[in-house]
């Protein structure tokens, strides 16, 4: 039993915006004061301190095939970021792609307690689950990529959406996944022919379906199945000067559906002078503002080293050719692909500088903080350890201006950012880092401090320098257990993996046995991670 007493509580879901109050914890949950035997409870004096729910990251690449290939490829990324063994806490190494144990501890040290793995191809999701088991201190879940899935595209081509729906429901259960993820719909399949898609109505080779049909079908299925999290989309043309236009077209095409657009910064550019894109954040934000069912995360660029990794295979090839950097590609039979390219973002590079200000403009121009969430698309735009810096950029316009003045002049010219005076409040930061993502994920016990919530609690010391404040929480509790203190991890607790298993017509499994013989080199019975695999906690649909 635990009491965190007299702190200034930021719990946006319950309308608490810094009111002084007590939080009581019993058996890993937040409880009413009356339920606690005060004589036996451990008491933390939080007077003058800021109390928030534990952080919730809605989109990060922390485990699985692409992350591990990134770790393996970049020994230079880890050196100088080693973590020694301490008590029961395991040794590891950080950098932009930390080892699993280091990832858990580093998130604890930032006050985060829940992180969703942004992508997993179902063929290799057993690997994702193995790594999640070795990632301490974080509750989690995996998004399952389906935007280039052969069975889905065939069902669309055959005008059998109910087959696609049954298959998606089966696949989520079989992979112990949490949500439907779409990455460059159709473009990844076309990359297996050395091509891509550029428009929502381009054709996918061999299927005759379009990116528009794929996203509309999958968004409809997510709604139909009542999945806790809507379809989670990485759109087409990421990084290109046509991306803002196609992002807006995507939002319009999905009107009426719940939809989450991830790392939208990377998809909010328009054509600019020379070879430098310009920010079209204003137009994209206007489209988001106009449609209340749309949520986004930003994918804010952080200057410095990053490791780009995505299922968007053609994008990564282009990045490799552009930068000359090392390149991993991995085409995954019948369902996905992907690539990895290390990169360094520099303020002195006009393209990188434009990406940086595009992200901040999105944060500042999307009106409703409940619909825009803090991410760096870790480790694509930067490492999650930079979140405190992003918070400072949002809360402190003087600091923002100081950083802006260091950008390449071509990026500064005509930029909207200096005109945006908005500063986020602590309450709004609590929304974009906790309450908002938890709500959009449909994780009812996360992101708030009401009775029944998981006792994931972060206590900060208020500081004028918001980066310093958020980089070093005084106490971090995960399920009521103290996991970090004064910015240092102190304990190692197992994370829980959330999954969904919506119902489906079992007749689909007969079809799948036939499909598998043609589509896979792994037998149907060995594909599902339910075969001697992961142990997850089901979240209800509907």
């Amino acid at each position, binding site marked *: 039993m635990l009491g965190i007493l007299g702190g200034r509580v930021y719990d946006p879901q319950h309308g608490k915006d810094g009111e002084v109050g007590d939080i009581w914890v019993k058996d890993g949950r937040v409880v009413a004061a009356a339920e606690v035997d005060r004589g036996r409870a451990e008491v933390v004096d939080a007077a003058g301190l800021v109390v928030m729910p534990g952080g919730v990251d809605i989109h990060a690449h922390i*485990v699985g*095939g692409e*992350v*591990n*290939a990134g*770790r*393996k*490829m*970049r*020994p230079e*990324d*880890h050196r100088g970021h*080693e*973590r*020694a*063994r301490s008590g029961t806490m*395991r*040794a*590891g*190494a950080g*950098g932009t792609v*930390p*080892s*699993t*144990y280091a990832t858990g501890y580093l998130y604890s040290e930032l006050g985060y307690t829940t992180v969703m793995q942004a992508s997993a191809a179902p*063929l*290799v999701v*057993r*690997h994702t689950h*193995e790594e999640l088991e*070795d990632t301490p201190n974080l509750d989690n879940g995996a998004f399952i990529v389906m935007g280039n899935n052969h069975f889905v595209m065939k069902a669309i081509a055959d005008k059998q959406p109910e087959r696609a729906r049954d298959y998606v429901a089966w696949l989520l259960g079989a992979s112990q996944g949490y949500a439907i993820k779409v990455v460059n719909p159709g473009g990844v399949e076309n*990359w*297996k*022919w*050395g091509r891509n898609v550029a428009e929502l109505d381009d054709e996918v080779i061999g299927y005759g379906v379009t990116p528009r049909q794929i996203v509309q079908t999958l968004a409809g299925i997510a709604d139909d199945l009542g999945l806790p999290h809507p379809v989670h989309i990485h759109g087409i043309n990421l990084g290109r000067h046509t991306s803002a236009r196609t992002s807006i077209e995507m939002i319009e095409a999905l009107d009426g559906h719940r939809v989450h657009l991830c790392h939208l910064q990377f998809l909010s550019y328009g054509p600019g002078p020379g070879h430098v894109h310009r920010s079209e954040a204003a137009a994209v934000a206007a489209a988001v503002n106009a449609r209340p069912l749309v949520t986004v995360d930003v994918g804010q660029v952080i200057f410095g080293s990053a490791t780009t990794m995505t299922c968007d295979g053609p994008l990564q*090839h282009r990045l*490799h*050719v552009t930068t000359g950097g*090392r*390149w*991993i*590609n*991995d*085409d*995954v*039979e*019948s369902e996905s692909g992907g690539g*990895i*390219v290390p990169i360094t973002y520099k303020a002195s590079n006009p393209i990188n500088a434009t990406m940086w200000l595009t992200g901040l403009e999105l944060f500042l121009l999307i009106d409703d903080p409940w619909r825009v969430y803090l991410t760096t698309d870790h480790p694509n735009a930067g490492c999650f350890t930079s979140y405190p810096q992003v918070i400072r950029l949002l809360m402190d316009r003087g600091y923002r201006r100081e950083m802006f003045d260091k950008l390449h002049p071509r990026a500064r010219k005509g930029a909207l950012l200096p005109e945006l005076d908005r500063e986020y409040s602590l309450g709004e930061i609590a929304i974009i880092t906790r309450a908002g993502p938890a709500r959009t994920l449909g994780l009812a016990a996360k992101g708030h401090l009401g009775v029944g919530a998981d006792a994931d609690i972060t206590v900060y010391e208020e500081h004028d320098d918001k980066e310093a404040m958020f980089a070093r929480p005084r106490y971090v509790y995960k399920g009521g257990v103290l996991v970090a203190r004064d910015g240092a991890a102190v304990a190692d607790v197992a994370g829980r993996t959330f999954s969904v298993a919506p119902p489906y017509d079992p007749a689909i499994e007969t079809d799948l046995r036939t499909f598998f013989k*043609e*589509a*896979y*080199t*792994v*037998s149907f*019975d*060995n594909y599902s991670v339910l*075969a*001697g*695999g992961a142990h997850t906690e089901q979240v209800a649909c509907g």
Partner: protein
Amino acid sequence: MSPVVENVSCPFCGCLCDDISVEVEEEAIVKVKRACTSGLGIFMDYDARPRRPLIAGREVEWDEAVAEAARILSAADSPLIYGLSSSASEAQRKAVALADRIGAVIDSTSSVCHGPTGLAMQRVGEPTCTLGEIRDRADLLVFWGCNPDASHLRHFSRFSLTPRGTLTPNGRADRTVYAVDVRPTGTAKKADHFLQVDIGSDFEVLTTLRLLVKGREPAADTVGGVPVARLQELAERMKTCRYGVAFMGMGLTMAAARQLNVAELFTLVAELNEYAKFSVLPMRGHGNVTGADQVLSWTTSYPFAISFARGYPQFGPGEFTAVDMLARRAADAALILASDPGAHFPGAAAAHLDRIPTIVLDHGPSVVAAKARVLFPTAAYGVDAAGTAYRMDNVPIPLKRVISTGRFTDEEILDRIIEAVE
């Protein structure tokens, strides 16, 4: 009729064929279908008799063996943990936990096999794909310094040479096949074209191909024993294929220039993607050597040759690779998990294993097991233990327990040793 277990995965090689059927009678395997001759041995020759652990050849109780293993490891200044690749990822994870706990050096059989492939990947990346993409799409196959005809016996029929796939409905007839090697191998005999390169000349031949792909003309008529005209023909095929795949093996990693050969091939493949779709696939050998790379990478950030001596992981190929640790007499105790460095290491390294106390976990006999200070006869993953292994294309495959023998798994023994050293 005896019960038949279907869709069993064979843990022998990196193909991890998971379509094997195994007939079991009273916890004994009586019949195996679809396995190759190597895989057949895994199941049919398995000695399932219960065995007790040995200390210096003397049968002891499990507790005593665990205590002795813990004593050896705790007393050592520089313990080495080696092997991993014929065990399951669950046990590999425990092996890293033990290395972390006792400050050991940990290394897998990768370091004497595809270690240079890993170094090449760190240098230039690796454009690759899963085996199903090869079966379904590939119309050009290039086997370079590898001989799956002898090493991966069902690779040709399941994945590469002959199977019918969605875009290769006519099987073998839909594929053009090259073999490049220093001698005419079984694989070369099955290829449409064989290019015999002089020993030690792979790098020059690969560089020449890169030139030709870029439309440049080499000064010589013959490179590494291969007429440039034949390389020109290959370069043209590579640039105009639908989906090309290069397979590579020890012929590149263990020849002079090692990782430079591999990096040159990987670079060629990367460059080809500006003309056609092209992938490369290292022909990983042991059943779960790919899993060893994976597990070591996610737990430590590095794929092999890792030291925990300073409390945190350090990567040092040439320094912390097992052969080097032993040949330099830098290890003063060793735990060998499911491999036989006694039989396969160079003389100086193997000789040092005779000088230091060794702890061996293995399901069968081996040179290193015969000389072990402490021997744990464990269960075999895929036969009498369930677990996870990673195919050569990084696809994780479940290994089934097809018979129950009551033997402890590697994972259980490592867990007990970890408890005992604490």
